[in-house]
């Protein structure tokens, strides 16, 4: 029984990865394999595009999770790392013709430097003050990038001309002209962030972070160097977020301060994590699965078309017209509603809620109280 297994592994948390029985592992492996084969079976650029967006959202959510979910420091200014990463790589590519596989290192370095700076300034602040400071820093960076026209082309943004073909040992790997290389790059990025999350969670670092999250002062009194570990978490998170930014810049081919440094992007990263389930390994995946198809379905009017086709609403009626015009832009509204619902009724996110449902059915007598944020009992 699932419940019995959970109790057993709790005591052996160092030996077996918690909750990692064979079946879930096989399922994960099968899904990953299927994802790898996907572009061979499906050629529709639109579907590939959706999957790429999904991978990007997963990567962004997982990156934020390291600092926000495990460490409990809610940064709502993560767009700073995303945008700095994107701008560094794209500026080098566009103006100095440095290929992105070298440029990405500069992007990472830039993001790390900024994260150290932000960490030193902001980590003295607690809770809500940290949130505010993180937003302020991200806004400062956005305004500087916007106004420093000679460096960044300001409001006009950077419209990528071409990515140089990737050659390995004299053979052409890809010329970046189709979606497939981006698909694989995105998939690898998403998997990498998942892996990093897993490693952090199941390492000593993860314990320190969660201790800091649960009670900073207690952790401090136990001898945990708060500022060191918070900065480590932020550095990891910044690095991954910057990679996502570079990927975004290369894939979309156009960046400007509003699209990669805006507060709404930062909020979106937090939302992906919160809605899915904060402080869990797969939470952001669930969050991305909820948000990406939803926003695309709304944007492309699929939902309205569906309602019209099943005859619930007439396309030419007033309601129909209203839906057609406006539902496309309702996805942010739905995010907002989801956040409110999740915070009020499902603080562990959709993933946590789902697990509670399953656990409640498998183990009717719940002995462990469910904490408000994440789970220190080793459940992912």
């Amino acid at each position: 029984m699932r419940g019995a297994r959970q109790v057993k592994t709790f005591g052996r948390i160092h030996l077996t990865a918690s909750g990692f029985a064979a079946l879930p592992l096989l399922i994960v492996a099968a899904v990953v394999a299927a994802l790898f084969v996907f572009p061979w079976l499906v050629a529709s650029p639109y579907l590939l595009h959706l999957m790429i967006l999904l991978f990007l959202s997963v990567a962004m959510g997982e990156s934020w999770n390291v600092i926000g979910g495990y460490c409990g420091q809610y940064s709502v200014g993560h767009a700073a790392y995303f945008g700095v990463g994107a701008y560094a790589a794209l500026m080098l590519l566009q103006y100095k013709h440095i290929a992105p596989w070298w440029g990405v290192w500069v992007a990472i370095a830039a993001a790390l430097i900024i994260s150290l700076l932000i960490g030193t300034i902001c980590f003295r602040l607690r809770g809500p003050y940290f949130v505010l400071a993180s937003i302020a820093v991200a806004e400062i960076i956005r305004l500087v990038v916007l106004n420093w026209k000679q460096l960044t082309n300001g409001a006009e943004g950077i419209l990528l001309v071409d990515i140089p073909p990737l050659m390995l040992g004299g053979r052409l790997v890809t010329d970046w002209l189709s979606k497939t290389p981006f698909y694989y790059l995105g998939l690898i990025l998403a998997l990498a962030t998942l892996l990093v999350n897993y490693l952090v969670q199941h390492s000593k670092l993860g314990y320190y972070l969660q201790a800091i999250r649960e009670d900073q002062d207690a952790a401090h009194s136990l001898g945990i160097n708060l500022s060191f570990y918070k900065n480590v978490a932020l550095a990891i998170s910044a690095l991954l977020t910057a990679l996502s930014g570079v990927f975004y810049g290369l894939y979309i081919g156009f960046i400007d301060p509003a699209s990669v440094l805006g507060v709404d992007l930062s909020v979106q990263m937090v939302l992906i994590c919160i809605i899915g389930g904060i402080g869990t390994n797969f939470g952001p995946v669930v969050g991305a699965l909820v948000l990406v198809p939803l926003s695309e379905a709304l944007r492309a009017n699929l939902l309205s078309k569906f309602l019209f086709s099943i005859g619930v609403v007439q396309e030419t009626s007033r309601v129909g017209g209203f839906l057609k015009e406006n539902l496309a832009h309702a996805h942010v509204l739905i995010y907002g509603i989801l956040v409110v619902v999740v915070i009020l009724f499902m603080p562990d996110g959709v993933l946590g809620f789902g697990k509670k449902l399953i656990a409640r059915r498998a183990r009717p007598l719940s002995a462990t109280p469910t904490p408000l944020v994440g789970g220190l009992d080793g459940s992912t």
Partner: protein
Amino acid sequence: MRVLLQSTASGILIGGVYALVGIGLTIIYGVMRVINFAHGELLMIGMYLTWIIFTSFGVDPFLSIAITIPAMFLFGAFLQRVLINRVLNALPQNQILLTIGLGLVLSNVVMLIYTSDYKIITTRYSSSTINLAGLPISTPLAISLLITTVITAILYFFLLKTDTGQAIRATAQDRDAAQLMGINVKRMSVLAFGIGTALAGTAGALVSPTYYIFPQVGGAFTLKAFVIVVLGGMGSVIGATLGGIIIGVTESLAAVYVSSGMKEVFVYVLFLLVLLFKPAGLLGRSRM
């Protein structure tokens, strides 16, 4: 010299509006310890309400605050009972997220109803000026500063001299002690949020003749409101007033002497400096 005087004057005028927004936020934080990220959206709702009244009934924006204040108060009380109350004891991070979500819902509902088209209110005096010692002062902003002063004075009087006001202050000072003293802290929270919302909505109404109205207008004001509140000291009404004026003047001078595009950077840098070196703000008590 003229430029300095002129921009300081504009800074003070716009600072008055910021102050009103800040006061609302500081009351909410003081009493409930809730960081309200939807505050800018409450201002936006006040703006739209003013616009509706103006276009449907032709009532002047300044006169219509007689309707806006009670309407926004009721709206705020409603929000508090239904949503905010549930997270009073939750982690601050969750409170922040809830109010962020609330803000998104408010701005997007308005966007669905009214589209993102920018709306602009034009009154007879929208671009007229009063001459004060040779400086042209925007008439609508001058009137709004006047009204802000009156409202602040009334609020201050309310908090200091009336029983309910003192009960609110007691709750802000020490929630548990106040409850032990027989104060209905739940009701105080509702009142505080209602007052905060009413002030935000009023600020929106006051600034509407000189600005334009669109669903996302709240965003810019929310962050500034936090800067003001932190600068003035969380929970201090006078602090928020001072903070508002300081921010308004900083912005104005930065626009003239540095560049219009970078003026917000100065506000945010000031914010970070305050957070780092004097987090209690000018007049507040350290509550971190």
